[in-house]
């Protein structure tokens, strides 16, 4: 049983991403905004398994997250691009550099996903009142980028270790 859990840990973590998305732990948030959870899983997975796997699982994650959110916008493009990009990053042997890099990479990934999502909202609601969306949306993106960058070194390094061990 333990062996099974260790071996399938990456898939088990994958299944729990939407659960965390539902759970939405407020005590981890900032201004009511949460870190962008899927990137914490996608980064170590893509770094270990490469770009193709990153793209495929970015698509899978996007499909699941789109199905549990009510909006008619999609998170798939951002996650696919991040999956591809993360797959091209090599694992650094220096632990300290690696940790900081997870934070920086996740910050940029979160910014990319947030911006692509915001552009979809703008495109759909394009009218004279579009300016009303700007300030809250920029605030959302920045808070999400900050939180994702803050938690990434802690979570990604642990997940990377677990995923490597499970191979």
């Amino acid at each position, binding site marked *: 049983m333990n062996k099974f859990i260790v071996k399938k840990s990456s898939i088990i973590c994958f299944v729990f991403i*939407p*659960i965390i*998305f*539902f*759970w*939405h732990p*407020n005590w981890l*948030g900032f*201004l*009511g*905004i*949460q870190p962008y959870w899927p990137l914490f899983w996608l980064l170590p997975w893509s770094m270990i398994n490469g770009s193709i796997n990153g793209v*495929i699982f970015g*698509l*899978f994650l996007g*499909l*699941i997250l*789109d*199905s*549990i*959110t*009510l*909006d*008619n*916008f999609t998170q798939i493009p951002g996650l696919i691009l991040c999956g591809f990009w993360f797959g091209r990053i090599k694992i650094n042997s220096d632990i300290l550099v690696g940790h900081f890099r997870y934070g920086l990479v996740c910050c940029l990934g979160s910014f990319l996903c947030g911006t692509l*999502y*915001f552009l979809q*909202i703008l495109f759909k*609601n394009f009218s*004279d*009142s579009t300016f*009303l*969306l700007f*300030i*809250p*949306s920029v*605030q*959302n993106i920045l*808070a*999400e980028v900050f939180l994702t960058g803050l938690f990434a070194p802690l979570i990604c390094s642990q997940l990377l270790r677990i995923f490597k061990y499970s191979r």
Partner: protein
Amino acid sequence: MLDIRRISTSRWWHKKKNWLFFAIFLFLVFVRISKGSLYKDFYYFISKPFWPGQFQKEVILKSSEQESLIKLNLLKKDNDRLREILDLQQSSNSDNISAAVISRKIGSWWRQIILNKGSKDGVEIGSTVVGPGGLLGIVESTSLFTSSVTLLTSPESKVGVWVDRIKINGLLIGSGDDSPNLILYSDDIDIKVGDFLSSSPASTLLPPNIPIGIVQSVNNSLNSKKTAKISLLAKPHLIDWVQILKVNVNE
């Protein structure tokens, strides 16, 4: 020279892994089409022990049972009288479904709550959800055990509202923060901070006269429109129990 021939086992369809990926992809497409109902029902079961106020609810139900026989007639009379005053003839308690909030996303762009009552309890898409204070949102999708509600603060939300003091209709649109925007399609309207908003009698989505919010600030006119920030009366981040109104406003 060696004749290099492509070995048939190297075809992509001969790899078990590719078929596995394809099967997962098909499953996820099914999940996407079903609007994540499998996930939502799974979450319903694993979050059941943590639902708000389970113990309190039992205590309240037990004590109310003891009192109900004595007070039922009095309350019924009071209820009828108040409904007549508030012009709420369209709905009655038997039309409402009480539900607990089992998940809430109130930050970022995804502003939604998930309730522990679904299609098996008679919740329908388009039902109005109210909490202490007033309107919260509209049911956007249902699974067997859960229903998902788009909050008024979501960028996807657009509802017709009625400004009571100046007797005019407006449009309330979510902007991805806690205060949605009111748009009035005329720039010479005398809207003031503190004006009260309720659901519009002209709305086809909502029952009329449900309290919504209060004008928090008024912006300058732009392109013959006036906009205002609205402070909502019902606070989704604090509410644990809500009422789903099964009122058919078209009837």
